[in-house]
């Protein structure tokens, strides 16, 4: 069992936990992920590490309530325990040698982008961050990004905070104006990452995208997290859990990844509704 040491509600659907897991805290690097189960017989869900506190051996995770499992997790309070917590998994984001980087985060993906921005900032790199949300209520981590970015663009789809529009607007403007980045690192909804790649393509700026497909074991056994890369005109199957989660954005077949991501959408909707109903009963 793994203790929840601290809980913080970042916005109505996004929650931050610090979970006691000293072995994971000791090893985790930006871009890696963990897998957790809330309770016995629960689903295994992958969540990217949002930070660590090596002193007290805790790992920060930030998640959005999107399905039954994240709903259940959101009911947990500080001092309570979750069943399983394993990691760090996947390959850490490659940051060596990067001097000027643009970080593009969307929604809860910003939670994953943040430790990468922090690490780059610490390395002395020039960091431009673009963070996008549907609206003002869903905004998270603005102060944290401010602290580690040389330039920060906050975007909302409805213009209720920051600037109106999606994340590709300032990206395109910067690239058009002749800004050169060693790398664009993007983390967020698949459709957003697909358009970040499309925006960067005419300028030839390298793009790393962080993928978060459906996964079970996370250690290279089940093959559920496979995705297709187009490498020099050849289709190559890769596994996000051991080969990723970061891939060259230009090589990823985003359409296929989006389709595969919807494999169980019916099932997930039912699970979410059931978990809400269970909670209602408990409240009554």
């Amino acid at each position: 069992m793994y203790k929840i040491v601290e809980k913080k509600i970042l916005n109505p659907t996004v929650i931050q936990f610090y979970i006691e897991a000293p072995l994971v805290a000791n090893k985790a690097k930006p871009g890696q992920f963990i897998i957790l189960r809330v309770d016995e017989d629960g689903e295994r869900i992958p969540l990217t590490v949002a930070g660590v506190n090596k002193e007290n051996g805790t790992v920060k995770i930030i998640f959005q309530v999107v399905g039954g499992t994240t709903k259940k997790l959101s009911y947990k309070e500080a001092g309570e325990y979750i069943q399983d917590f394993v990691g760090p998994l996947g390959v850490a984001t490659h940051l060596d040698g990067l001097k000027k980087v643009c970080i593009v985060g969307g929604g809860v993906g910003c939670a994953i982008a943040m430790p990468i921005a922090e690490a780059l900032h610490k390395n002395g790199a020039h960091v431009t961050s673009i963070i996008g949300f549907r609206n003002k209520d869903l905004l998270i981590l603005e102060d944290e990004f401010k602290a580690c970015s040389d330039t920060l663009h906050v975007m909302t789809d409805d213009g209720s905070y920051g600037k109106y529009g999606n994340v590709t607007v300032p990206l395109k403007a910067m690239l058009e104006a002749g800004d050169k980045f060693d790398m664009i690192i993007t983390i967020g909804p698949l459709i957003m990452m697909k358009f970040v790649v499309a925006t960067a393509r005419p300028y030839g700026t390298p793009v790393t995208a962080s993928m978060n497909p459906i996964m079970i074991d996370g250690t290279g056994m089940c093959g559920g997290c496979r995705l297709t890369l187009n490498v020099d005109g050849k289709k190559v199957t890769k596994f996000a859990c051991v080969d990723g989660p970061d891939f060259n954005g230009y090589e990823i077949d985003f359409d296929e990844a989006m389709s595969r991501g919807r494999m169980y959408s019916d099932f997930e909707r039912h699970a979410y509704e059931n978990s809400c109903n269970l909670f209602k009963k408990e409240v009554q």
Partner: protein
Amino acid sequence: MAKTNMSLIRNAMPTQDAKVRAHNFDEVALGYTEEQAIDEAMRCLNCKNMPCVDGCPVKIHIPEFISKIKDGDFEGAYQIITKSSSLPAVCGRVCPQESQCESKCVRGIKGESVGIGRLERFVADWHNTFSTEEPAHPVSNGHRVAIVGSGPSGLTCAGDLAKKGYDVTVYEALHTAGGVLVYGIPEFRLPKKIVAKEVDTLKKLGVHIETNVVIGKTLTIDELFEIGYEAVFVGSGAGLPNFMGIPGESLKGVYSANEFLTRSNLMKAYLNSPETPIMKGGKVAVVGGGNVAMDAARTALRLGAEKVYIVYRRSMEELPARREEVEHAEEEGIEFRLLCNPIEILGYNNPDDTRDPKNGFVRAMICVRMELGAPDERGRRRPVVIPDSEFTIDVDSVIMSIGTSPNPLIKSTTEGLEVNRWGGIVVNEDGLTSRNAVYAGGDAVTGAATVISAMGAGKTAAKAIDDYLSK
């Protein structure tokens, strides 16, 4: 003592009726009664040269335990088996006895061999049901050994070392101990409570089991030595599932056998867990002919498939699965499409509605017919495509069961660990790798093989580790 039973035919294994069991996950084979076990034991001639023991990878004293059954001393029989095997209830169920101990049995020359596997299972089940004897806690010798992976090789190695007084810790990446015994082999062939019981027995021997630790990630092999372990055994199992590389393998509804079985077994979709989605019902094609393919096909059937095909490119003769599993599958109504190979999987694509929820799901599979050509270097006849033989099978899901390639996690984080060109860890006859005090065995070394060969490797390594640390 009663006279030897000279019947040429062995006692049949009572099984659930095929029509009934095709719709439940209860165990197919029900096990011998005491009377059947004694009657079968009486068929053993107690040969002096014990050819059966030669056929056993862990060298169980077979005639000796069978003699105890003849006397009705079932606990005595169990004690003899556990001297050599740490997992008797598992082996009695999943070992390919027909190609091991039973293939050497003298009674098999004229008639059927003694049902050694069935007797082993009977003895283990009897012990688990009736015995209250706790295993003796061995005296510690002060040496610490780490085991990577709690599958059959790791558990065997742990058990053998613990019995000798070693302080053993088993690290498991998943949330439950057992490895392939819990995520791979289905309930109807190996009930999970039996695996849990065997793991419990090891814990009573003093073995520590740490779940949720991925060696190569959470801790490296080098760190295990820094923590104070004096030797490490790597039994991390087979790795990434292979795919064919044909169009359509990323459609929704295409699974690797590993994923399909893991969802059903470890994640309990077979119990209708509300937490674990799995595609069920409809028509299912399983590509491949090994034991894993049989497990996947029979699981799909039990989850409610209306039709399940095994699609295999060679003929029945070359099918690598155990004969018994193939027979069970046939009885249950699995259809074998032999000499047949998929070349493309087709998906739904509604041109009028891009938001049609069926878009991107599997609808059919195109196959070609094969014939057997000249034998390859291993003597197996190579399947050759018959020109213009394409045909289409309507299916709703496809399960690829065509083997695995070794897991990269340990190799990539352990300097100086030699692997072969397939990525399997290289070991000598004692299971020692290219790294001092690091041993390995099971699928991580051989690629996908059997539970008992993994146990044999765990046993060999345990002996070598004991020799090394008692120097």
